[in-house]
Structures are given as C-alpha cells and as structure tokens.
C-alpha cells in the first residue's frame, strides 16, 4: 500500500474511531466527524444530483435548443415546464413570493398521492387479501391425506395446515386490533387482545433475528481497522523510498492521540467522581 493511500486509510481509521467514541459520550472527535460527514454528504449529493440527475434528465434533453431562444426550439421543449416549476420552488428565497412555491409543492404531492392510491391498494391490500384467502385447508394435493396435512409433524411444522390456520387467524385478529371506532370489549376485545399478542411475538422474533446482522456490521468495522489500517502500518513491506518510519510515525501519532484522549477523559472522570454526573 503506497503512502498516500495509507495516509487516507489512516484518516479513515481515525474518523471511524472518532465515530465510535460517541458510544462513550459526545466529544470533540465525534463532533468533528459528524460535522465533516454532514458537509461532505451534502456536497456529494449536490454533485450526484447534478451529474446523474439534472444533466441527463434536463440539460441533455434541451441540449439541441439554443439558450438565446430559452431552449424553446429544442426537440423536447416541454421539459422546460418542470424546469420552470422547479425554479418556482426558489421563490421561497423571498418572503413576499414564497407562497408561489406552493404550486410545485401541490403538484408534487398531488402526483405522488395519486400514484400511491391504486398502487398501495393493489400491493398492500388486494394482493395480501388474496394471499391470505387462498390457503388450502383440506390439503387436496397432499399425499398423506387431511390428517397428516393438518397436523404435519407437530405444532412447530410450518408447512402444516395448523400453522396455516394460525397465520390466518393471527392476521385477522391483529387486523381487529387496529379497529379505531369500536371499543375493545367483549369477544371483539378478546380477539383484539389475541391480535396484539401476535403482533408482539412477531416483533420480538424479528428483533431477535436482526441482532446477528447488526453485530456483523461491527465485525466489518473491526476488520477494516485491523486489516486495512493496523496490518498495513506494521507491514514491513510498506516503504516510501526505502523508509519505514513514515508509516510508523503516522500510525503511532494517531494511536498516541487516541490513547492520550482516553487517559485525559479518565483523569477528568475520576476527578469529578465525587460530584454527581449527568444522567447518561
């Protein structure tokens, strides 16, 4: 790994650790990383939207027009409309005219809600309803016959009819829980209660299921620090015209900085031990 790359990697490792320091408390390193990434991310987005959004979606479509004719002579002149609407958003810069920006906003929201209505009705309601109803309790195409199909290999058999019924009933009960205009009393109330049980079990399960993925995220960061940074710093083959020391210097400088900060914090913490600390 050449020295420049190593320097960059070192910086990457530094900001990584700085971000982790947030776990202890809000501190200068984290503030640095945070403010940096906010700015960089915003700038990055400007660039991406310019090069991959504005240029292909607008400029190139108006490219064959002439600016002094305001591109009205371009073959896709109608793309001026969104451009104008977009420009109307900028009336927000002025106090007096900012109400004009409501037009593009209204358009935006109108289009998106209009798109949403049939789409969501189809994907979330109709298709789910169909999926819920077309389960075959009688197990027609099951070799073992109804009994085998229904009870399968016991309660935990996810392919058995029993599980299908549980899914069905659970879904309906959970749906009942979401009724707003009916008090949860009597039989209805019991159904709703069962519904909320199902919901809670489901939530618990998916919570537990996610833990593994989250931990591997942390392991990836560990690997980055270890393999990309530390191992490169200590790798004797990494040299800049025959010299090892630059690598080590940079590495130990950063390490020292971090260790130093930790010691500093500890001393401060022990110093303020007597006094009550903020509720963290």
């Amino acid at each position, binding site marked *: 790994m050449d020295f420049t790359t190593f320097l960059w990697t070192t910086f990457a490792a530094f900001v990584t650790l700085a971000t982790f320091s947030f776990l202890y408390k809000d501190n200068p390193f984290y503030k640095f990383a945070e403010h940096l990434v906010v700015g960089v991310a915003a700038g990055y987005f400007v660039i991406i939207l310019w090069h991959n959004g504005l240029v292909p979606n607008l400029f190139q479509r108006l490219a064959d027009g002439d600016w002094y004719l305001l591109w009205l002579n371009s073959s896709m002149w109608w793309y001026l409309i969104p451009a104008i609407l977009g420009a109307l958003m900028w009336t927000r810069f002025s106090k007096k005219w900012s109400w004009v920006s409501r037009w593009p906003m209204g358009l935006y929201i109108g289009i*998106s809600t209009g798109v949403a209505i049939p789409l969501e009705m189809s994907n979330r309601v109709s298709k789910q*309803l*169909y999926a819920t*109803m077309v389960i075959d309790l009688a197990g*027609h195409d099951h070799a073992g016959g109804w009994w085998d199909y229904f009870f399968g290999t016991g309660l935990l058999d996810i392919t058995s009819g029993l599980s299908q019924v549980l899914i069905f009933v659970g879904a309906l009960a959970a749906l009942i829980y979401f*009724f*707003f205009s009916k008090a949860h009393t009597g039989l209805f109330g019991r159904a709703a209660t069962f519904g909320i049980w199902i919901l809670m079990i489901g939530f618990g399960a998916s919570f537990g299921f996610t833990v593994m993925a989250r931990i591997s995220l942390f392991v990836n960061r560990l690997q980055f620090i270890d393999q990309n940074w530390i191992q490169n710093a200590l790798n004797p083959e990494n040299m800049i015209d025959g010299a090892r020391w630059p690598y080590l210097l940079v590495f130990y400088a950063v390490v020292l900085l971090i260790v130093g900060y930790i010691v500093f914090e500890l001393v401060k913490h022990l110093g303020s031990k007597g006094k009550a600390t903020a509720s963290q």
Partner: protein
Amino acid sequence: MRFLLRTTVILALLLGAGVAAQTEPPPPVDSVETPSIPPPAPVTGLEVFDTDDDHGHSITLTWELSADDGIGQGSVMSYDVFRWYPPLMDSLAARRDKIQRAQAAHARFRRDLGVAEDALGDLLSGDREFSALRFSVATPTDDSTFVLDRSFVERALRDTIQVMSTNLPLLPDSIRALQEVFESALERLPEAHKTYPTGGTWKSVGKAASGEGRFVNSGSKDPMSGDFIPDFTDLYYRVDAVTADEAVRAESVIVGPRQSKGQWFNGGRFPVFWAVIIFGFLTIYFVSRARKGAELYVRPLAGIEAVDDAIGRATEMGRPILYVLGLGTAADVATIASFTVLGRVAKRVAEYQTELIVPTYDPIVMSVAQEVVKSSYLDAGRPDDYKENTVFFVTNLQFAYVAAVNGIMLRELPATNVYMGKFFAESLLLAETGALAGSIQIAGTDEIAQIPFFIVACDYTLIGEELYAASAYLGREPILLGSLKAQDWAKAAVIVLAIVGLVAASFEWTTFTELFHVTN
C-alpha cells in the same frame, strides 16, 4: 510518402486519444456433436394473440406440448419461437445502428478534438515534451530511419484538428438526415409486413423450456431499441420443437397475421379498481355524515394522548421539542400524514411558546414542513415567534442525517422527541440516543421492520396504521374521524372476505377467489 506518414500519425493520434475501445465479439459456442436423434413431433394447437392488458408491442403464444416432450425425459429439450421479419426490418436495424454509430462518433469527435487541441497547446507552450503528450504516437516500426520530430507532430496535430473541426459541424445534419430516413422506414413497416411471405426471413425471438406451452414475445416500444415490435402490424409466428441436437427440430404450422396493440383498460387490475372506487365512496360517505354532525366514537390511542402531555412537559422543563419527519420524501404518504401531526404539534408549541427543532432529510419535505409550521404559528396567533431556522435541512444521506440528529439530541437535550414518518435502519440509532438524552419519545412508522425497535426504545409507539389515524385523533375534527370509520369498514370487509375466501379455496371454488386475484 510524407502524406502517408501524416495520415498514419493522425490515425495514431486519434487512437491514442482514446477512440472508443472495440468490444470483443463473444466466443462462438462450440457446436455439439451428438448421436442423431429422430425428429420429434411438432407442437400442435398453436395460438397467437395480442398480449392483453398491456401497452402493446407484445404478442403471446400458447401451444400444446410436442408428443416427444417428456418434461425433460423426452427428446424435446426446448421450444424455439420464430417471427417473420420483412427485409425492411433488417434495413431498419442497419439504419438504427448507423444512427447510433454516428451519434457515438459525434460525441467522440468532440472529445478527441478537445484532446488534440490540448495536446497542441501543451506542445506550443512547450511545458511538456511531445514524447510526454497525453497520447501514444505509433512510429512505423518498419523503417528505422523514421524519426518523429516536434514540428512534424505539431503539423500532424494541426491537420488532425483541421480535419476534425471541418467535419464536426457536418455530423449533426447527417445524423438528422439518417433519422428522417429511419422515420420514413418506420412508417412503411406495416406495408412491408403485408408482403408476407416474399423476401423476408424467420428469426428466433426467444426460447421456452420443455414442458412450457406459453411464450410472450414482448418487445420494446422504442423504435431505436433492437427488440422493437411495431403495433398494428401483421406479424407471423411459428414454434419449433427443438431436440438435444439443435439441428434436429420440428416446425409448427405458421400462425398469422396477428397484430399487437395497447389496451385502454387493464382488466387484470379490476379488483383494485373496484376496491379504490368502493373505498373512495365509503370515505366520502362517512366524511359527509360526520359533517352533518353524527357522533363518532374512537377508542383512545396512548401514543396520541401522550403528545399533548409531552409538549406540556417540555414547556415546564423549558427544553425544546425535536420533531423528526423520517427519511421519507414528500411523495411518501407516511410523510404527508406526519406533516399533519407536525402541524398540530407546532400549533401547541406556539401556544405554549416552547422551542421546536425540525431537522429534515429532504429539501421538499423541508419546504413543506416550513409552510406547515409557519401557518401553525399563524393559527396560534403568534406569527412573530416563528423562526425560519426552526425547520432546516441537514443532509440527504441516511447515516449522515442520523449523525447530525444524534448530535442535536445530546446537545439540545430536547424534552420530547417525536418520530413520525418513514424510518429505516436509523430508527434504533435515533431512539436509543434519545433515551440516552432522557427525552420522552413518541414514534410512529409504517415500516414493519422498524416498528419493533421503536416499541423497544420509545415510550409510545404508533404501530403502522395508527400513524395515519394520528392526524384525525389529534385534530378531533369529525370530518377526519369520518375517514377512520371508512377504514374500519374496509378492514371488516377484508376480514369477512378472507374468511369466505378461505372456505371457498378449501372447497376449490376458485371462481370466488379469482375475483380478488390481481394479475399484472
């Protein structure tokens, strides 16, 4: 001789200047030699018709399997679908890639001209040896006496630039001319197809695996793309039953003419259509009833009740309220629902004169939210208390946004955090930090995967649909409550239909269930 050299150098320059790299042709698939297989039985009952419920440019074929199709066991391995192409189609294709090549060349010339000019500039300004120019000059290796000198390269460059800059302006016109020819050819396609079967050729348009009796030849609607299928044009099809040996195959009868065209209504979406219409009327009906003043009961939602107390708490503690609209854009209905909640919160905040912080993720969301908050202050009769920076833009990347909001939480120590809208992996990051800062937290999202984390980390959570009910609840306006009634009726309908459907399915009464089957 001199001229020849120059041209070589010019070409070399062009090449060096990065003429688009020629793509390797794919290696030819080795022919297979297998013991001769007896020709299989052809497919029968070939049906060819316009694909239904689509935008056209697509034809569906169905057929009965060949007698020798043992679904993998018999000799038929696959079905080859052929369409008849009139000669014009080929010339069309030829013109197409001519146009594309011309356009590519145009772009390339522009770039190369720039490169050559830069090179000349470098050469003249002498700040770079011409041997170190940004292109590789290919010296003809055959005669070693040839030495490439500065002045020569310079002349070569000048020629190149001259040639290119004379040709460049001409290209657009020639492209336009090509396009006109293409258009005219496009118009002549239908007549061309009427000339069947003279001249044209049969081309394979796709394969279907053995055991499959259906194939959809759906092409592009864009004439400039290779698989363009013209609408309102007589198309002819045939299907070959192909054995292990590609050569041994049986042709079916030819079916045609058939035309593809777009439909004006998508029958596959009837269930959705009815659902939307009925639900729409339900909503309007209950809203109008509510307008007339019918009393509507709604069961209490803990999360909603909490909002007011939370604002009060913030006022007492003299600490701000943080309202997070989530990662949704203004195009997400969840975010729109959140706007309404924000409106209510902002109104109360204005009344109590508490501080409100609304960091946003999307510029349009920011603009809308500013409108919302501003007019909420107006309604509360405190327009002067509104500050432009109450609602501000942070950044447009998920975790950068999280970083910033977390920072805000730990520094401003808001008394209450409200999360309403679309949330993804950041849900827990935000909620945990909020808990760390000791804030009361109220969350609402329709992202199933994130609800568990909010439930675990927040004090109150609106689960899925409850988010959409929140606005109605907070306002307590009968009109809005009316729509809740409509939602409940729809849910009841869903439950009933599901039960009936379940029974129907179990007795294999598919006509009923199919009523609700959304195809395409």
